[in-house]
């Protein structure tokens, strides 16, 4: 089993602890994405798995073997770096062969391996070129090729697409996904881009301030965020969060009461954060929705849909609405309709999701 198991992993630099006891199981062939804001400890965690950072405390197991004191070269992992880490003085073939030469693989075997992987990645015409003569996307492919030729047990990706432009990033994202489906190698991928996380991951690990906030499939995290941080991090635009108080039938936000789905008996008067996804509201009233009056500030057209920037009381809100080819009708919007069953509640004090017997 080429899985990765992290148990109580801690990283400290002197007195400063940056990763506070992480527990994570990555199953064989699984694609797990560590996502979070800058400085949350996701890259440090990945580097501890690679062996580039010493583990202060806890256990790291790869393929059932404890790896805390094992040298990076003996962990059988391959890493793709944010800036590709290609050797500028070597051509594409030599870059890809670097790790194999170090491991003294026979030359004819190296050539066969390089040719095979170059074919998979569409790099065959560029094998004689140096990195400086390649485009960003080609460099990225070479970096991946260098990892693939090693046939490692685990792939580690450290924000590999962050240096690419938006169009190329989308293209490479799909290539990584296809490659993973084809090779089926256990992968741990670090990014701060939630779109990358949502599209690539079998499971997402949301990190914040050196801790794991939530682990789950992309849709689990999107539909049932464990706390306000995850709710605010995943989704584009993120979930709207409004301060409210629970009543007998719903949640009161300012002078408006949003009807809620399910029983909230016994929780009346409790301070909560009411979460509403921007795309969950409708402009027309329908069954099971409550009207939320808003003051529209700005309409941002995106093509088929538009973002409505508005505020309700002191809360700044963003909603998505279909344009149907025209945005003029959106300027008059003064109310959105919130479906009761899609409203999320969080504890106002702890920020944790509330499940009040729904």
């Amino acid at each position, binding site marked *: 089993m080429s899985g990765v198991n992290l148990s109580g992993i801690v990283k400290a630099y002197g007195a400063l602890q940056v990763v506070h006891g992480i527990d994570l199981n990555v199953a064989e062939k699984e694609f797990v994405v560590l996502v979070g804001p800058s400085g949350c400890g996701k890259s440090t965690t990945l580097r501890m798995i*690679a062996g580039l950072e010493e583990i202060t405390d806890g256990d790291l197991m790869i393929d059932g073997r404890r790896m805390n004191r094992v040298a990076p070269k003996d962990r059988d992992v391959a890493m793709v770096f944010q800036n590709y880490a290609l*050797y500028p003085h070597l051509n594409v073939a030599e870059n890809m062969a670097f790790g194999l030469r170090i491991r003294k693989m026979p030359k004819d075997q190296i050539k066969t391996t390089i040719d095979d992987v170059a074919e998979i990645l569409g790099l065959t015409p560029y094998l004689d070129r140096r990195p400086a003569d390649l485009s960003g996307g080609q460099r990225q492919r070479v970096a991946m090729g260098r990892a693939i030729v090693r046939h490692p047990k685990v792939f580690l990706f450290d924000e590999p697409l962050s240096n690419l432009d938006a169009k190329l990033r989308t293209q490479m994202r799909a290539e990584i996904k296809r490659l993973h489906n084809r090779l089926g190698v256990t992968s741990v991928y670090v990014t701060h881009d939630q779109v990358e996380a949502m599209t690539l991951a079998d499971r997402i690990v949301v990190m914040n301030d050196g801790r794991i906030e939530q682990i789950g499939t992309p849709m689990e995290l999107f539909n049932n965020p464990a706390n306000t941080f995850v709710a605010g991090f995943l989704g584009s635009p993120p979930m709207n969060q409004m301060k409210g108080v629970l009543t007998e039938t719903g949640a009161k936000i300012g002078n408006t009461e949003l009807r809620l789905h399910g029983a909230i008996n016994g929780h009346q008067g409790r301070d909560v954060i009411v979460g509403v996804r921007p795309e969950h509201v409708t402009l027309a009233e329908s069954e099971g929705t409550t009207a939320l009056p808003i003051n529209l500030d700005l309409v941002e057209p995106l093509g088929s849909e538009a973002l409505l920037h508005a505020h309700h009381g002191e809360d700044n809100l963003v909603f998505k609405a279909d344009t149907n080819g025209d945005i003029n009708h959106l300027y008059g919007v003064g109310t959105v309709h919130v479906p009761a069953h899609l409203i999320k509640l969080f504890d106002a004090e702890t920020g944790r999701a509330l499940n009040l017997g729904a």
Partner: protein
Amino acid sequence: MSDRNSDVGGIPIEEVVVEAQEALRDRSQTRVPDKNWVKVLDHFKREWQIYAMLLPTLIWFVVFLYKPMYGLQIAFKDYSIFRGVAGSPWIGWEHFETLFTNDQFLRAVRNTIYISALNLLFGFPAPIILALMFNEVMHATYKRTAQTIVYLPHFISSVIIAGIVITAFSPSAGIVNTFISWLGFEPIYFLTQPEWFRPIFVGTGIWQEAGFGSIVFLAAIAGVNPSLYESAVVDGANRWQMMWKITIPSILPTILIMLIIRIGNVMEVSFELVILLYQPSTYETADVVNTWVYRQGLQSGQYDLAAAAGLFNAVVAFVLVMTANTLSRRFSRTSLW
């Protein structure tokens, strides 16, 4: 009551600014393009501080490098200090003919090339090796101390350096001969024997300059992308492999540039150190073009002949640096210009 600073004649100041910007933009779109001299003048007006900072360097170049070039013509004249540079008669290549039939000059040329070759062979790699070694030292305090110790000789005057060398190799009280005697051998008169001059001279040069010279290469090493090493570590490379396969190829452009500069100075063997260390008994191996020029020009008053020798030196250096630069550009894509 309106705020006097926030409007102009009752119009909000933001609107006035926007209108002014639009008016300027319109005017610039319809304007005839400026003539070149106007552009140059505008450029100088805008950037005069930068040119003011450049001025001392320009003056230095003119006074110490370009103005003396005027005096080079005495290499082709029968120069007399009473007639001056302009008044002395032209004699063509006569001084050069004298030079190339002069055994002492030819010996000085041979010595210069020999010593320079030794310097290039041993003195050039020394700072690179030193920088690579410093790069491998992980203990910060030890590294800093070692660096300070090897940088130190650079800041000591050549006169003191020569004094230390003379004392160290003294046949009576020098540490080297004391050690030789301790081993049971006869003391060696190092500085009076021609065969010992070159090793001592080249060794002294390395001791004096290798540490300071390593700074350039350390800076180049510091510029190598750290993720190249991390990637190599994950690939299984050890420190030795990383040095050979990453560090050295990465600093190769710097090495080549420094080599080109060094080749340009091949004929400029450290004149003062030779003067301080040589003596008539070691002229056979120690006398270089510059010391020969010094003796002919200043001590014998043959300024024109010395100028010819100096010009020859400069032409050789120019050809060498051009050749090295061209070869480097062709084979490694690295060049000074």
